C-alpha cells in the first residue's frame, strides 16, 4: 500500500471544487461537441491567415486572359487505393464563334498534386524569403492546378480565397478588439463611477444605437479618400465597424459593474486598502471576463458579414486588396455566375466561418458561467 494514496478516493466532485474558473469553463465547453469542431475550423482558418502565401498554389494577382474561367479541378486524395492526391487535367479549346477559350475538365488525364513545391517567391510570416508552397503541380509550371478554378482574368481562385480569408478574418478580429477596448473602457467608467460620466456615455450609446447602421456605414466608407492605401482603408473600415459595435458591449459591461460594485468582495477589497485600479483589474474584471469573451466571439460574425457586404457593394476593402467581399464582387453578374458557378465558393466560406463563430460563441456563452446549471 502506497503512503501517497489519498485516504479518500478523489471523486469528480472534489476535482470540481479545486478546479480554477478557467478549468471549469474549459470542461464545460468541451462537452459542446459542435462548438469544439467549430473551434477547430476557426483554428484552421486562422492558420491560413498567418501565412496565406504558403497555402497558395499561384500568385493571387497573376492574370492571364487565356486562362479565364477554368473550372474547378476536384482534388482526389486516393489514386485507386493508394493515397496519392491528384486532380484531373483541363483542356482548353477556342470557341470558333466567340473566339473565347473554353476550358473543360479532362478526367482521363491525371495531374499529380505534389507537396512543398517551388513556386512564386514570397516572405514567410513577412520574414523568411522562400519559394516553397504547400501544394502545387509540377515545378516547371507546365501542368495547371486550380483547386477552385479561375476568375474572368484567369486568376487562381484558391489562392485568392486564401488571401481573402486573411483580410476578412483579420478585420473581424481587429474590429471586435477595438469594440472590446472601447466597450470595456467606456462601459467600465460609466458603471464604476456613475454620475455625470455615466449620463454622458449612456446618451452617447443611445445616440449611436439609434443611427441606421448600414446606411451610415455606407456613407462613411464612401467618404474614404479614393487614393488611400489598402492598409489605410483596412484600418478605417475596422474603426468604422467598431464605432457602433462597442455600444452593446459597453452596456453589458456597465451593467456588470453596477451589479458588482455592491458586492461584498469589492467592499472587502476596498477595506483591505486595495487601489481602485487593483479592484477593477484583479477583482471585478475577472468575474465577467468569460462573458466578455463569449459576447465578443458572437460579435465577430456580424463584423465579417458587414465587411463582406460593404466590400461587395464596392465600398469596403478595394481591389487590389483581396477580401471575401471583393471576391464575391466577381459574382455580381448572374450571366457570369451561370458560366462559372465556382465564383460563389467564397460565399460558402463566409457562411462556414460565420457559422463556426456563432457555434463557438454559443458554446462559450454556455460555458462562461460554470456554476449555473
Amino acid at each position, binding site marked *: 500500500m502506497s503512503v501517497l494514496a489519498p485516504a479518500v478516493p478523489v471523486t469528480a466532485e472534489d476535482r470540481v471544487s479545486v478546479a480554477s474558473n478557467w478549468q471549469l469553463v474549459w470542461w464545460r465547453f468541451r462537452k459542446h461537441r459542435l462548438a469544439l469542431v467549430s473551434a477547430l475550423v476557426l483554428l484552421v482558418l486562422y492558420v491560413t491567415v498567418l501565412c496565406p502565401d504558403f497555402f497558395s498554389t499561384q500568385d493571387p494577382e497573376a492574370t492571364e486572359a487565356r486562362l479565364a474561367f477554368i473550372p474547378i479541378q476536384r482534388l482526389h486524395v486516393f489514386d485507386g487505393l493508394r493515397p496519392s492526391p491528384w486532380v484531373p487535367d483541363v483542356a482548353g479549346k477556342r470557341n470558333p464563334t466567340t473566339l473565347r477559350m473554353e476550358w473543360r475538365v479532362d478526367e482521363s488525364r491525371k495531374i499529380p498534386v505534389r507537396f512543398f513545391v517551388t513556386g512564386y517567391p514570397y516572405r514567410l510570416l513577412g520574414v523568411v524569403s522562400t519559394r516553397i508552397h504547400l501544394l502545387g503541380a509540377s515545378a516547371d509550371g507546365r501542368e495547371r492546378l486550380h483547386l477552385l478554378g479561375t476568375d474572368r482574368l484567369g486568376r487562381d481562385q484558391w489562392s485568392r480565397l486564401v488571401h481573402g480569408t486573411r483580410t476578412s478574418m483579420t478585420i473581424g478580429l481587429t474590429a471586435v478588439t477595438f469594440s472590446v477596448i472601447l466597450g470595456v473602457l467606456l462601459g467600465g467608467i460609466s458603471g464604476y463611477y456613475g454620475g455625470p460620466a455615466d449620463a454622458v456615455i449612456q446618451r452617447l450609446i443611445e445616440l449611436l444605437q439609434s*443611427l*441606421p447602421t448600414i446606411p451610415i456605414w455606407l*456613407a462613411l466608407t*464612401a467618404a474614404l479618400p479614393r487614393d488611400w492605401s489598402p492598409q489605410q482603408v483596412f484600418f478605417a473600415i475596422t474603426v468604422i465597424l467598431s464605432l457602433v459595435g462597442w455600444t452593446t458591449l459597453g452596456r453589458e459591461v456597465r451593467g456588470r459593474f453596477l451589479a458588482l460594485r455592491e458586492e461584498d468582495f469589492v467592499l472587502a477589497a476596498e477595506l483591505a486598502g486595495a487601489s481602485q485600479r487593483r479592484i477593477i483589474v484583479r477583482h471585478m474584471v475577472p468575474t465577467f471576463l468569460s462573458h466578455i469573451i463569449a459576447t465578443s466571439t458572437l460579435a465577430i460574425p456580424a463584423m465579417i458579414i458587414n465587411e463582406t457586404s460593404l466590400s461587395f457593394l464596392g465600398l469596403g476593402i478595394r481591389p487590389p486588396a483581396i477580401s471575401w467581399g471583393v471576391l464575391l464582387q466577381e*459574382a455580381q453578374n*448572374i450571366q457570369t455566375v451561370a458560366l462559372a458557378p465556382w465564383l460563389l465558393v467564397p460565399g460558402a466560406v463566409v*457562411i462556414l466561418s460565420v457559422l463556426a463563430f456563432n457555434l463557438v460563441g454559443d458554446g462559450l456563452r454556455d460555458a462562461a458561467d460554470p456554476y449555473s446549471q
Partner: protein
Amino acid sequence: MTRYVLKRLVLLPALLFLFSVTVFAIVQAPPGDFLTTYVATLASSGSSINAEQVDALRREYGLDRPVWVQYLKWMENLAKGNLGLSLEYQRPNAELIGERLVLTMVLALLSFVFTWIVAIPAGIYSAMHPRSVVDYLLTVLNYVGVATPNFMLALVLMWGAFAYFGMSVTGLFSPDFVEAPWSLARVLDLLEHVWLPAVVLGVAGTARLTRVMRANLLDELNKPYVTTARAKGLSEWRLVVRYPARLALNPLVSTIGWYLPALFSGSLIVATVMNLPNIGPLLLRALINQDMYLAGSILLIYCFLTIVGTLISDILLAWLDPRIRLEEG
C-alpha cells in the same frame, strides 16, 4: 406614461437636429464636391467642360459657400418641406425618393409579415417538441439562416433561377410595368415580383426570431401555471397557444419598432444586388457621385424612421409589460 411619451416626443427634434449635423458632415466629408466627380466623369467619357462653366455651376449650386452656409440652406429648405434638388438628376429629390420610398416600405413590411408568419409557428412547434427531429432540423436551418449574408442568398437564388429555369428574378416589375402609371395590374405585377426579395430579406430575421420564440416559450412552459392548466385537462395545443405563447410573444412584439427600420436599412444591400427600384441603390449612387443633398436627405429619412421605430418599440414595451418603469429613461 403620457409624460414619458411627451418627453420623448420633445426630444425627437433635438435628436433629428444632431443627426442632421452628423449626416451632413458625413456626406460633406469626401474631398472635392459633386462637380469634381462630374468633371472627372465627363473627362473619362471624352468630353470636357471649361473651368469657367464649372465655376458658374459651382456658384449656382452654392458649392462655393462655406460648409455651414450650405448646411443652413439645406435645413431651411427641409423646414419648408423641400428636400432640395438632386445635382445629378436635376430633379427635385422628393420626386426621386417618393415612389422608391413607398416600394422600400412595401418590401420591408412584406418581409416582416413573412418573418412572423414563419417564425412564430416554427418557434412554438420547436418548443413544444424539444429535441425532436423537426426541432433539430429547424435549429440547423436557423444557424445557417443567421450565417448567410442576405446578398449571398440573393445571388444564389438569382443564379439558380437563371441557370435552371432561365428566369431573371431581378427588379420589382415586369418590363411592361416599369414605367407604367399605378394601376391594379401594376400592383398585381408588383406582388408577383416582390415576394422573393421579401423572403431573402426576411430569412436572417426569421431564423433569429424562431430561436428567441423557442427559448422564451421553453422558459414559460416550465412554470407552475402551465402544469395547473394541464392538470385541469386542457388540450396541449390550446394550453400552449392560450397562455404561454402570448407571454413569450411579449418581448418580441416590443422589438417590432426596432426591427422594421432594421429591415428598412437591410433592404439596401439586397436591393442593390437584385436591382430593385428602392431607395437603396439611389443612396448608393448618390454617395458615390457625391450628390450630397440627395444622399443627405435619404440618410436623414433613414434616421427619422429609426428614431420613430425605437420610440414605438419603447412605448410598446412599457404598454405590454407594466413591470417596466420608464421614468428613468
